C-alpha cells in the first residue's frame, strides 16, 4: 500500500473512532438529561392532575358521607376530560374499568415495570406504544372502602424525536469532519511526500546508470536531509564508478599494449622459424632470419623481465628504506650506464655534496638508470648528461631534443613511446618510466618534468 494511503487511512480511522466515541457519550448524556427533565415536568403534571381529582373527591365527600362511589367517580373523571387518565376499580384479582379513553387494557399497564417515584407513593414506568413514548404514573386511591387504581400517561415522544435529531446531527458532523480531515491530509501529504517521489525517481535513474542526476529538494526537514545525503551518495557513487571505469580503461589499454608488444616479436619469431623450416632460402637470408629470431627473443626476455618488475612493484611488497649517500647512488647508476653512454659518445657529469637520501638503494638506482637511459636516447653524440643532488631532490638533466608539451602527461603510461621506431631500435619497450613512476610513488617522491623542445629536459625528483 502507498505511504499516503496508509497515513490517510490510519488518521481517518482514528479520527472516526474518537468522534464516534465522543458522539456516543454526548448522545447518552443529553438523553439522560432530557429524560430527567421530562420526568420532572411530567411528575409536576401528574401531581396537579391527581391533587385536582383528590380535591374534587374530598369536596364531594365533605358535603355528604360516602357520596363518591363508582358512578360518581366515573362522572367526575368524565368531567375532567383528561384522555390520559385511566381508572380501574380493584376488586380482588380482576380490575373493573371505570374510565379509559385509550385503547390499552389493564393487563397492558400491569405488564410494565414500575419504579417508585421519590416518596410521593406513586410509581412510574416507561412505555412504548406504536412509535410513541410515554411515562406512565400509577397511583392508588382509597375512596371509602373502595380501592381504585389510576394510571396517568404523559406523551414524551418529543424527547426521542429530539434525540433522533441530535443523533443525526452527530453522525453528520462525524462524517463531515472525517472527510474534511481526509481532504486536508491528502493535500498536505501530497506536498510533504513530493520530494520522496523525486528521490524515488532519482534512485531509479541511478539504478539505470545515470549517475550525474541530482535531486533538487530545498527543505530543512528530514526529507531535505535525506535528499542531501542521497545527493552525496550519488556523488560518491559517480566518483567511484568513474574511477573504476577509468581504471578499467587503463587496464584494457595496458592489456592491449601488452598484447601488441608480445604479438609482434612472437609473429617475427614463429614466422622466421617457419620460414627457415619450409622455405628454400639463400645462405645470407638464413643467417638474417636466425639473427632476427635471436633479437626478437631477447626483446621478449627484456619485456618479460620488465613486466615482472612492474607487477612486483605494483603489489605492496616491502621496500628496504635505508640511508644511502648520493655518491653511492650516482656511482652505481654511472657504472650501469657507462657502456651504452660510451657507445653513443655521451658524457655523464655527477654533482653531489655529501647529500644522502632515505631510499631503497637498488630500486632507486634503477630509477636513475632509467632516467639516464631516457636522457641518453634523447641526446646526440657529444652531448652531456648532468646528474646532480640537492638537499631534498635529485635532478637528471639532458640537452637533447626535449619532450613535446602534450606528451608530458602520457610518458608515464606503460608502453608509451614518443618515438616508437627509435625506441625499439634502442631496445625499449616503453616500460622504463612506468616502472620509475611506481618506484617513486613507493618512495613518496614526486617527479617534476621541465622540458623545452630542442633544448633539453630536466627530470627533478622531489622528496616529500
Amino acid at each position, binding site marked *: 500500500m502507498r505511504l499516503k494511503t496508509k497515513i490517510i487511512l490510519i488518521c481517518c480511522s482514528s479520527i472516526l473512532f474518537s468522534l464516534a466515541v465522543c458522539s456516543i457519550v454526548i448522545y447518552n448524556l443529553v438523553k439522560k438529561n432530557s429524560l430527567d427533565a421530562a420526568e420532572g415536568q411530567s411528575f409536576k403534571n401528574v401531581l396537579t392532575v391527581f391533587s385536582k381529582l383528590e380535591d374534587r373527591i374530598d369536596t364531594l365527600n365533605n358535603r355528604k358521607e360516602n357520596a363518591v362511589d363508582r358512578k360518581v367517580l366515573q362522572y367526575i373523571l368524565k368531567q375532567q376530560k383528561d384522555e390520559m387518565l385511566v381508572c380501574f376499580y380493584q376488586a380482588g384479582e380482576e380490575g373493573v374499568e371505570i374510565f379509559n379513553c385509550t385503547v390499552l387494557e389493564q393487563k397492558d399497564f400491569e405488564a410494565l415495570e414500575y419504579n417508585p417515584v421519590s416518596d410521593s407513593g406513586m410509581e412510574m414506568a416507561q412505555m412504548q406504544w406504536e412509535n410513541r413514548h410515554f411515562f406512565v404514573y400509577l397511583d392508588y386511591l382509597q375512596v371509602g372502602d373502595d380501592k381504585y387504581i389510576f394510571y396517568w400517561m404523559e406523551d414524551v415522544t418529543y424527547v426521542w424525536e429530539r434525540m433522533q435529531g441530535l443523533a443525526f446531527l452527530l453522525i453528520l458532523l462525524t462524517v463531515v469532519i472525517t472527510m474534511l480531515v481526509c481532504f486536508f491530509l491528502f493535500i498536505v501529504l501530497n506536498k510533504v511526500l513530493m520530494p520522496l517521489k523525486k528521490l524515488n525517481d532519482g534512485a531509479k535513474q541511478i539504478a539505470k546508470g545515470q549517475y550525474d542526476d541530482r535531486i533538487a529538494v530545498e527543505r530543512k526537514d528530514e526529507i531535505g536531509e535525506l535528499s542531501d545525503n542521497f545527493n552525496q551518495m550519488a556523488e560518491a557513487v559517480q566518483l567511484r564508478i568513474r574511477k573504476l571505469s577509468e581504471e578499467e580503461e587503463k587496464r584494457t589499454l595496458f592489456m592491449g599494449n601488452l598484447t601488441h608488444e608480445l*604479438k609482434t616479436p612472437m*609473429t617475427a619469431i614463429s614466422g622466421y622459424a*617457419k620460414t627457415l623450416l*619450409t622455405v*628454400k632460402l639463400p645462405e645470407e637470408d638464413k643467417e638474417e632470419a636466425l639473427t*632476427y629470431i635471436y633479437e626478437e627473443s631477447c626483446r621478449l626476455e627484456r619485456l618479460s623481465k620488465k613486466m615482472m618488475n612492474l607487477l612486483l612493484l605494483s603489489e605492496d611488497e616491502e621496500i628496504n628504506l635505508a640511508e644511502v649517500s648520493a655518491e653511492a647512488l650516482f656511482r652505481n647508476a654511472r657504472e650501469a650506464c657507462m657502456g651504452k653512454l660510451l657507445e653513443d659518445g655521451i658524457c655523464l657529469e655527477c654533482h653531489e655534496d655529501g647529500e644522502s637520501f632515505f631510499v631503497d638503494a637498488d630500486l632507486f638506482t634503477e630509477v636513475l638508470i632509467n632516467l639516464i637511459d631516457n636522457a641518453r636516447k634523447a641526446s646526440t653524440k657529444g652531448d652531456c648528461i648532468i646528474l646532480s643532488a640537492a638537499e631534498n631532490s635529485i635532478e637528471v638533466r639532458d640537452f637533447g631534443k626535449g619532450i613535446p608539451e602534450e606528451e608530458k602527461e602520457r610518458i608515464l603510461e606503460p608502453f608509451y613511446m614518443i*618515438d616508437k621506431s627509435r625506441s*625499439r631500435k634502442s631496445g625499449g619497450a616503453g616500460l622504463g618510466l612506468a616502472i620509475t613512476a611506481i618506484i617513486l610513488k613507493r618512495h613518496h617522491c614526486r617527479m617534476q618534468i621541465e622540458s623545452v623542445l630542442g633544448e633539453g629536459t630536466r627530470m627533478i625528483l622531489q622528496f616529500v
Partner: protein
Amino acid sequence: MPQNRVLIVEDEIPIAKMIAMNLKVAGYETVMFHDGKEAADALVEEHAYDIALLDVMLPGMDGFALLEIVTSYGIPVIFLTAKDDIGSKVQGLQGGAEDYIVKPFEILELMVRMEKVLERNKKSDDVIHVLDIEINLLEHTVRKNGEEISLKPMEFELLCVLVRNKNIAISREELLRRVWGVDYMGETRTVDVHIGQLRKKLSLNDNIKTISKMGYRLEE
C-alpha cells in the same frame, strides 16, 4: 614470367623483412617502407604496385590514412595488424581494403589471400611459367617444352598450388585442404599418390622435394 610487385609498409622491421623474404622466394618483387609518411611520399614518384600490405599502427601516418592514398592509385590493399577489434576491421574494410589479416599470421595464409586479391583484381597472369613448364589457367592446360601433357583435374590443381608457392614447403594436410577442399575426408596418402603422378608425368623428380615433417616443396 613478369613478377607481381608488392608494397610492404610495416614499422616492425623484422616482420617486414620476413614477409619480403618469403614473397621473394615465391616469385614476388617487394618494396619495403617502415614509415607511413615516407611510403606516401614515395608513392607520388613510383606507384606501379600490384598489391600493398599495410600495417595499421604506423609512425608518420597511420594505415587508414595511407589506405586512401594507396587505393587512389588503384592498388589493392591487405591490412596486416595486431589490432583485432571489430571496429578496426570494419573501418579498414569499409575504407576500401581488400582483406584484413591479424597478427600473428601464417605466411601461407597471407600468400593465399594475396593470390585471391590479385585474381580478383586481374593482376595475376593467366599463364604461369615455371622451369620449362607453362601452365595456362584459362585453358586448363599444361605444356612442357611446348608439348601438351594431360593431367587429371586434381593433379592440375595440385600443380597450381605448388607453383604459386614455389620454394615454400606445404604440408600434406594443407595441400589436401587447398586442393581437395575443407570437406574432403581422404587421407594424406592421396596427396602422395598425386605428387608421384606429377613427378612422373612432368619429370619433376628433382624439383618436387619431400621435406621431412613439413611436406612438399617445388624448387626452381
